[in-house]
Structures are given as structure tokens and as C-alpha cells.
């Protein structure tokens, strides 16, 4: 890894942000803590997606499948078979990794372009949603209720609000760290060269299959684990939320607004937009149905117009101008 990886780790900023993040639950009322937890979930998802969609530049719309696998499979194993949710989390992550590798292989074998890749991954996600809804074991259309969270960590229970928040804070930090590690290691160089030009990447010795598969499996495993945590946090594994391609669209939106390909950008995008969406829905959802979507859409358009290359690159360019 490049020295700047360690420099970033040793600099005070990430630790300051983590510390402030860690004391938040002690200061915030429950409602805002919930919004912050959901924001962290989306920040982690956007960050995990960025490995494939940003760094490797492949717009994967399959990621709701990985969230769904992490949420529905681990929940079903617990509720139907009594399997410890930690094991369920690992099993779901393994399934996601295999599916991710399969998607990469198809992409490599048939030399899918960007558009075909997006469409095929969307097809995978749609099939997954239909499969979940049609399968009783996975809860079918009505989903699965999880047992009450008693705070027993050995049972993947984190004690509700605060516990789930801290777990998600750690998970988000891990996802950002993985992004940073990839960007400052040979894998990052290989993925970026592939993103820009696959032929030219091959001509400088970059193996497409190996690198695509690595990126996709890392991303799928992280996404699946977040899915398991998300289901546990909600105490209800809802296929229409957790296995729906609409979820992927939100992830892609946050990552793009924040700044594709950078380590921190996608999480930043989630922090800018997710709370706005949640608060608008909370404030306006019952007054005039649909209005919160409208305002949210305007906010998104505003942010994109203000920083077309992503908020993070906008902030960086401000920093450069000043120095």
C-alpha cells in the first residue's frame, strides 16, 4: 500500500470524525438517532458499491440482490431453522460472493459493455426479488419478523438503537477503509485502468477477469453484511425494501452525488442526501403525499448542478483554490 494510506490513517481527521460520530447517540433523541443510523447504512452501502461502480467504473444494478441475500437469507436461516445469525451472515455473504463472481464471469466471458452490464445486473436483481417473494422459506411476500433484540451479541443482537448505530458506524468506517486500501494498492491501479479503457488495460498487463471478480466479490460481501445488519436493525426483513432494485438506485444516486471513485465521496453523498429524504418524509409525508419526493428531487438536482463531478471533488477543488 502507498504511504498515503498510512498517512490518512494516522492523521487526526478520521479519528475526530469517528469520535464525534461515536458520542452522537448520547446526545441525540431517538428519532434523530434513527435517521443517523439509516444514513450510516446508506453511507456504507454507497461506499461498498463504489468499489465496483466507482473505482472499477461498472454500473452494477445487482446490489439489491446482495443486500437482499444478506437480509433475507440470514433472517430465514434464523427464523425457520434456528441458525445463529452470525453464521447466517457469513452464509449469506458467501452466497453473495459466489453470485458476484458469477456476474463478473458473465461480464468477462461475453465482453459486456457498460450498458449491457447495467442491464444484466438489473435483470439479476429483478429475478432475485421475484425469487424471494415467491419463496416461502425466505418469507415470501410478507417478509420475516425477527425475534426481539435483547442485546445478546452472541445472537447478533446489538441492543436496539444505540447498539445498532455503533455497529453501523464501525461498518461504514470499515467500508471506507476498504475503499482507501484498494485505491492505494495495485488492485486500485488495475481497476482504474480497466474503468477507463479495458483494451489498453490488458495491453499493460491487467487481467480483466481476476480484477473484475475481486472487485465484485469484495463489494458483494460487504453489501451482504450490511444487509444482514439492516434487517436486524429493522427487526423485520421486508423484501420490498431490502431486495428491491429501487434500493440500488438510491445507492447509485448517493455514490454519484458524493463523487464516484473516491474513498470518501460516496459515503459523503449519503450523508448529504439521506437525512434530507428522511426528514422531509417525516415532516411532509402526512401533509401532502408526494410533496416530500418533489422537494427531495429538487434538492438532488441542485446538488448535482452545483457539483457535477461529485461533492467530494468540488470540496477538493475548493481546497486547491485556496492553497
Amino acid at each position, binding site marked *: 500500500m502507498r504511504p498515503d494510506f498510512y498517512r490518512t490513517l494516522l492523521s487526526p481527521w478520521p479519528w475526530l470524525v469517528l469520535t464525534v460520530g461515536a458520542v452522537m447517540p448520547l446526545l441525540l433523541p431517538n428519532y434523530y438517532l434513527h435517521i443517523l443510523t439509516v444514513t450510516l447504512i446508506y453511507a456504507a452501502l454507497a461506499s461498498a458499491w463504489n468499489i465496483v461502480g466507482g473505482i472499477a467504473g461498472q454500473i452494477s444494478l445487482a446490489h439489491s440482490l446482495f443486500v437482499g441475500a444478506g437480509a433475507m437469507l440470514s433472517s430465514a436461516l434464523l427464523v425457520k431453522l434456528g441458525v445463529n445469525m452470525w453464521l447466517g451472515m457469513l452464509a449469506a455473504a458467501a452466497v453473495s460472493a459466489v453470485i458476484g463472481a458469477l456476474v463478473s464471469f458473465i461480464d468477462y466471458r461475453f465482453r459486456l459493455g457498460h450498458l449491457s452490464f447495467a442491464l444484466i445486473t438489473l435483470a439479476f436483481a429483478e429475478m432475485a426479488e421475484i425469487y424471494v417473494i415467491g419463496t416461502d422459506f425466505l418469507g415470501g411476500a410478507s417478509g420475516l419478523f425477527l425475534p426481539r433484540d435483547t442485546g445478546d451479541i452472541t445472537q447478533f443482537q446489538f441492543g436496539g438503537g444505540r447498539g445498532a448505530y455503533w455497529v453501523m458506524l464501525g461498518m461504514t468506517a470499515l467500508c471506507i477503509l476498504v475503499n482507501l486500501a484498494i485505491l492505494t494498492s*495495485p488492485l486500485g491501479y488495475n481497476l482504474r485502468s480497466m474503468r*477507463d479503457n479495458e483494451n489498453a488495460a490488458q495491453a499493460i498487463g491487467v487481467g480483466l477477469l481476476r480484477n473484475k471478480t475481486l472487485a465484485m466479490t469484495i463489494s458483494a460481501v460487504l453489501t451482504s453484511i450490511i444487509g444482514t445488519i439492516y434487517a436486524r436493525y429493522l427487526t423485520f426483513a421486508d423484501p420490498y425494501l431490502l431486495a428491491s432494485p429501487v434500493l440500488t438506485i438510491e445507492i447509485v444516486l448517493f455514490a454519484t452525488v458524493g463523487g464516484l471513485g473516491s474513498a470518501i465521496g460516496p459515503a459523503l453523498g449519503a450523508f448529504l442526501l439521506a437525512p434530507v429524504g428522511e426528514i422531509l418524509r417525516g415532516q411532509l409525508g402526512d401533509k401532502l403525499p408526494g410533496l416530500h419526493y418533489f422537494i427531495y428531487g429538487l434538492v438532488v438536482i441542485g446538488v448535482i448542478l452545483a457539483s457535477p463531478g461529485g461533492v467530494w471533488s468540488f470540496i477538493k477543488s475548493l481546497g486547491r483554490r485556496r492553497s
Partner: protein
Amino acid sequence: MAILAVDNVSKRFGGLVAVDSVSFSVAEGEILGIIGPNGAGKTTLFGLISGFMPPSAGDVKFDGASIVGVAPHLLVRRGLSRSFQIVQTFADMSTLDVVTTAALVRRPLLEAIDYAGHVLARVGLQGKEHLTPKQLSLQDKKLLEVAKCVATDPRLVLLDEVMAGLTLAETEAPLAVIRELNAQGVTIVMIEHVMPVIMRLAQRMIVLNFGAKIAEGTPQEIVENKAVVDAYFGDHVDA
């Protein structure tokens, strides 16, 4: 021993025969020039040798072993590197990052970054490490193509028109790099349109026309070859 042996290689696209039973071999340490009119199949031939497309018939041997069906990135690892005629840009990577990626073929990351800096300086791109390829002039882009090849530590490089579009003066920098590479023992096969350049550089040349090899010999023999003159100027030219 021949480092590269092309044996009766053909490539058909539907009814079009882009490369037609071409055979030639290249000795280790040689500089071979390939010329021919537009559409003669030169770049296709490079694609066949470097693993980017499979030949319809025939065999290509690198270092004595057949390389038909071997993926391009594995050929690079074995020491066969190519440049592209149409400069391949990487939109979001600096020239240093691009060349570092190439250097990663044989080096751990920190060494690769270091080496990439040296290679860029060697081809004359020092001070432009942090520009993206899009910000480079055509001449610099061509130098970057050469730098990408050099950074993989090749034994054989296929250079596809690295001097096309440059003025004669601008060809000096890439020429020097190619000579230096060759002096270090790297075998070079180059497609080139700039005749004065390739005449000075190549020890041997082959000429393609309509996909077939029509002549082979020293640069002097080639310019005196009637079939070659006919291919370039038509056969009704009265001298």
C-alpha cells in the same frame, strides 16, 4: 533463435481477408519494420500477435512456444508488449498512474511508482507526471504509449505508428527511446508510415498489401522493389 515466428497467419472478417497467410520471423535483438498502404492489415496483424484477436488460421510462436489463444495480459507478463495506433487514453488517471499500472507487471507498488517516474523522464515526459493523458499534446500522447510499453520491461515490443502525425523534428524523442531500448537487447517490431524514420531505424522490413506479404528485405532492397512501388503508387506510373 527467432523470438517471434509468425507462420501462415490469416484473419478473415466474413468475406474480407484482412491478413492473408502471412509468415515472417524476428530474431532476438532485431528491429523489424512493417509498412504497407492504409488497410493493408498491419494493425490487424499486431492484434493477432498480441492476443487481442484469434487468427482464423496459422500459428504465432513467441520464444518457441505457440501463443495463439493466450490472453493479452499474460503475453505482457511473458515479455510481449504492444502500443496502440489510436492513442488509448485513460480519462481519470495521471500519466504517472498509467505508467505505474504498467510497471506493476513486474514490480511491487512502491518500486513501480518509482520506476514509472524514471520511465516518464526517459521518454521525455518529466514534469508531466500529474497531467491526465487528455491534457497531453499528440506528441506527448505517443510518448506515453511508448512509456507504457517500456514500463512492462518487455523483451519484444510491437509499436504501432508511434510517430504518425509527428513532424520529423518531433520524431527525435521517440526515435532515441527506441534506439536505446534496442541497444538494451529489446526486440522491436514497428509499423510506421514515416518512411525516412523507418528507413533509418529498421534493419529489415516487410511490406503488406491487401493482407498479404509482398516483399521482405533490407530498407534499400525494399525501396527498389517493383512490387512495393506498384503497391504504393499503382503500376501505371511512368518513371
